[in-house]
C-alpha cells in the first residue's frame, strides 16, 4: 500500500476514530456555520462561541471521510482558547501547508510565500501530520473544508461585532 501511510498517519486515524469536541452549541450565543465539499458530499458544521475576543468553545458536527473529520477534530483542539487573531494565523499557516501542492498542480495560487515545496510547517503541532495529504491532490479539499468553514465563522463573528457596534 505505497503512500497510504503518508496519507493516513496514525494521529489522523486517532482523531477520526475519537473525534475531539464533537457536538453542538446553543445558537446564540454560539455561531453556526456549515461547509460542504461538493465532490464527495462531506458536510461539516462548526459551532463557535466567543468571549472577549477569544474562542471560548468550539464544537464540530457533520459527516465525512477520515481526512475531513480528523482535520476538523484537530482544528477544534487547536483553536479552542485562541484569540480570533491567533485563529486567523493558524488558518493561514494550515492553508499554506495545504497550498504547496495546489500551486504545483495549478491551484488558485494564493499564499505565494510558501511556493517552495516541503517547507516544514511551523507552529502547527500535530496538524503537521496532515502534510501528507498534499501528495493526494484530490483530498486537499477534504483537509481544508473545516478550515474554510472556520474562516467563514470568524468573518461572520467579526462582522457581527462591527454591526453590533454600529447599532
Amino acid at each position, binding site marked *: 500500500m505505497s503512500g497510504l501511510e503518508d496519507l493516513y498517519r496514525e494521529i489522523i486515524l486517532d482523531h477520526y476514530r475519537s473525534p475531539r469536541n464533537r457536538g453542538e452549541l446553543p445558537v446564540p450565543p454560539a455561531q453556526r456555520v456549515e461547509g460542504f465539499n461538493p465532490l*464527495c*458530499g462531506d458536510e461539516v458544521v462548526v459551532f463557535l462561541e466567543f468571549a472577549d475576543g477569544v474562542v471560548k468553545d468550539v464544537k464540530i458536527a457533520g459527516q465525512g*471521510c477520515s481526512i475531513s473529520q480528523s482535520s476538523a477534530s484537530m482544528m477544534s483542539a487547536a483553536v479552542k482558547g485562541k484569540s480570533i487573531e491567533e485563529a486567523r494565523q493558524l488558518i493561514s499557516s494550515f492553508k499554506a501547508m495545504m497550498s504547496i501542492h495546489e500551486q504545483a498542480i495549478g491551484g488558485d495560487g494564493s499564499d505565494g510565500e510558501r511556493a517552495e515545496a516541503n517547507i516544514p510547517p511551523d507552529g502547527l503541532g500535530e496538524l503537521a501530520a496532515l502534510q501528507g495529504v498534499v501528495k493526494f491532490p484530490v483530498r486537499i479539499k477534504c483537509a481544508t473544508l473545516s478550515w474554510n468553514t472556520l474562516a467563514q465563522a470568524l468573518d461572520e463573528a467579526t462582522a457581527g461585532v462591527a454591526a453590533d457596534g454600529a447599532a
Partner: protein
Amino acid sequence: MEELDPVALRKEFPLLETRRRPDGKRLVYLDSASSSQRPYQVLEAMDTYYSTTHANVHRGVYAIAEEATRQFEEARAKVGRFVGAPNPATEIVFTKNATEALNLVAHSYGRGRLGMGKAVLLTEMEHHANLVPWLMLAGERGTELRYLPITDSYQLDLSDLDKLVDGAGVVAVSAMSNVLGTVNDLRPIVEAAHAAGAVVVVDASQLVPHRVVDVAAIGADFVAFTGHKMLGPTGIGVLWGREGLLEEMPPFLGGGEMIRDVRLDGFTTNDIPWKFEAGTPPIAEAIGLGAAVDYLESVGREAIAAHERALTYQAIELLTDRHGDDIRIFGPGPDDPNRGGVISFAYRDIHPHDLAQVLDSSGVCVRAGHHCAKPLMRRLGVSATARASLYLYNDEEDVTALSDALAKAGEFFG
C-alpha cells in the same frame, strides 16, 4: 448469440491493455458508469478523420468539406438507427453531453411549449442532469415540481402515479439509475403521462451503453444519452426527439448553423436537427461515436447485456458471500433480471472516499461520492456511497480484485 470474451476485448482498449498498477498487474477499471474506456477503433476513426478529411461541415463546397459533412451526417444516421429512431436524419440532435441534451429540452420545450400552470413530474432517483435544469425552470417560472418516490426495494413507487401525473406537462425520468442500477419499467409511466397530456423525457445515459434501447418501443417523446459512457469520445451527447415536437420548439443556443436567415432585426431558424446545433459541432466526436456504435454492434448488444447480467449476479453473490454484514448494497438484488451492472455499496463504516483511496492503492478504480444524485443520497440516508460498475471488458477477475481490495481496506482501517 455468441458469448463475448472480455480478455480478448480488453486487447482492443489501449488504456486497459497498457496501463499498469505499481505492482505491474493490469488496472481493474470499475467506473464505466462514470465514463467508459474506448477501443482503438474509435480512436483511429477520429484520428483518420483529422488526418485525412477535416474541414468544417455544412459550409465548404470543396471536396473535403463535402466528405466531412457526409461522414458527420452518416454518424448521425448510424446513432439514430442504433436507438431505433423513426427518422434518424432529422430526430437526432448532437449536443455536448447528455446534460446539455436535457437542458435543451428543459429550455426549449419547458420555456417554449410547456403551458403555464403545468407541473413537471420527476423521480427521487434522478441524476442532477435531469433535475437541476427543471429546478432552474421552476425558479424562473414557478413551475411545480413533483417526484415519484422510491420504495425500500429501490424501485420507483408508482402507486400514486395517476394522481401525480394529473396536471403535469412533462414527465422526466431516468431509464436506469446511475446509483442503484435499477432499470425502470417505463411503459406504465409513458402510458399515464400520455393519457394526462404530458410529454415524456427519458435520461437513458446509463441504459443505452448496456442494453438494446428502442426509442419507438419505449414510446417516449425525448431520449437523452451521452457518448463517453458507450465507448465513444467525450464532448458529444445525443438528444432524440419526436420530429413534430422538435419542429415546434424554439432553438436553444443561438449562432451559426442553426439559422436560415439573419437580418439586423431578427432571424429565422434552420431545419431540424441543425436548428439545435449552433456553432461548429463536435465533428470528430460524432464520427468517433459512430465508430463506437459500430463496435458495440459488432460485439453484439445482446451478448453485452448477457455478459453484464451474469457478471453482476456473480459480483453481488461473491461480495455478499465473502463480506456478509460488512457490505451493504444499495440496489435491487442479484436475481432481478432487469438490474444493471451498477453496484453501490457501503463497506463497514469506512467512508466511501477513504475506501476508494485504499482500493486505488490496489489498482482498483471505483467511484466514491454522491454520484450527482444528492436527493437520492438523502433518501438512502447516506452522504455518499462507493460504486463499482461493470462493462463488456470486465470479468470475474476484476470482481475478485475488488473483493480482495475491500478486505485489505478493512484491515487497514481496523
